């Protein structure tokens, strides 16, 4: 049984923020996570964000701003995002099923703050910043600081996620996105890895970005390994060495869990594969 006491769908952002300011309403986007939480949950008042014009994708120089209500399907089919944020494009195309992607939104994926949210590791690669709005004003917070823990964020009372600002990938960057699960469709990720790599003219790694979902308590970049790889000549041994360090970090930060005997070798193998795949895309000229 779903418990909804009230359903409001304002058409103006100011009206929505005013209602949110009352502190009684739960914001709704696509509903693919929320409707599940409404079943047998505490009764809630719903404020639907759908009519606030937050389904935009804006191209502005070095950045792309994505409205929080853009669906996974819209992101996955957008040519600008495929070109400039390819890892996000891929991640969005792998969410749930087509039915879920047609309703679920990128903003909902972020705010729900599941440790295995598919789009978050991808967005972290692009230094995503979140534009949060309330009746008191607007603030911008890096995505890396927004998710505090499983299903916990720093979204303040009365605030909604308005949009996400991503820095475009540098031209000729290789990338990979690996989603591990029991099956291909309608799949809750066991682990996600997103990488991007840029090579210098001398064949050494110029820059590299790595983020992981379901590895640490929150989806996060792994700056220690990123720093370690820069300036080095890429090789399988190097990648495996980096992946081993990542596995040690996982155990240190997430603790020894029942899944550790599985996750440790899997992380080592998948991260090695992820970096190799990103590099091979670069060599194959498969980058835009």
């Amino acid at each position, binding site marked *: 049984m779903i418990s*909804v006491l009230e*359903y409001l769908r304002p058409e103006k952002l100011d009206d929505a923020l005013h209602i949110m300011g009352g502190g009684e309403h739960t914001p709704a986007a696509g509903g693919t996570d929320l*409707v*599940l939480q409404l079943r047998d949950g505490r009764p809630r008042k719903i404020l*639907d964000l759908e009519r606030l014009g937050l389904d935009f994708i804006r191209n502005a120089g070095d950045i792309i701003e994505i409205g929080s209500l853009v669906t996974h399907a819209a992101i996955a089919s957008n040519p600008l995002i495929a070109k400039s944020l390819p890892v996000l494009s891929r991640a969005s195309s792998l969410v749930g099923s087509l039915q879920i992607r047609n309703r679920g939104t990128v903003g909902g994926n972020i705010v729900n703050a599941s440790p295995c949210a598919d789009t978050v590791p991808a967005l972290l690669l692009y230094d995503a910043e979140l534009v949060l709005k309330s009746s008191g004003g607007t603030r911008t917070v890096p995505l890396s600081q927004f998710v505090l823990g499983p299903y916990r964020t720093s979204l303040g009372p009365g605030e909604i996620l308005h949009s996400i600002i991503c820095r475009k990938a540098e031209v000729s960057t290789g990338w990979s996105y690996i989603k591990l699960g029991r099956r291909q*469709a309608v799949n809750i990720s066991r682990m996600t890895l997103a990488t991007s790599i840029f090579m210098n003219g001398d064949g050494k790694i110029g820059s590299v970005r790595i983020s992981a979902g379901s590895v640490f308590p929150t989806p996060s970049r792994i700056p220690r390994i990123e720093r370690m790889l820069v300036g080095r000549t890429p090789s399988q041994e190097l990648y495996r060495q980096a992946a081993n360090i990542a596995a040690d970090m996982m155990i240190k930060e997430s603790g020894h869990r029942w899944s550790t005997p599985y996750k440790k070798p899997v992380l080592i193998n998948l991260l090695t594969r992820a970096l190799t795949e990103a590099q091979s895309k670069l060599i194959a000229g498969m980058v835009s």
Partner: protein
Amino acid sequence: MVTTDVAVKFTLNGIPMERDVPPNWTLLRFLRDGLGFTGTKCGCEIGECGACTVIFNGEAVNACLVLAPQIDGASIWTIEGVASSGRKLHPIQQAFVECDAVHCGFCSPGMVMSTVALLLHNRIPSNAVLKESLAGNLCRCTGYLQIIEAVRKAAESMDDMHLEKFRR
């Protein structure tokens, strides 16, 4: 618990409607219990099985994950609206029959609606696209091969005019 019904205007299978819907109902419950349209099946109710797939503004969605008030302004197609008249099957349904793509039949309405949505967007889908478009629909009678064959048959043999109405 006091709840206030929400007035919605929408189009169901091409017919404009106005109703008051409880805010704690899903679209699935509204179709089945509110309107008596029981062709849309209630399976898992968590968006995994696809038995409740309907077309919502031209896209396949799980009716179990849409709140009933969210249909305001929307155009919805269910399995009841697929055949044009009471007696003659739609070419997609006919293809399902001819390919033996129906076993117990529980997944069939959802499969047919996913097929409609697929062919609306992609008249000649590749095998990869076809499988991806049906990946959100489970069949527990293991009839996937026949279902894929039926979708392919419908895609190849059907006239475009049989898809026109779903665009409205």
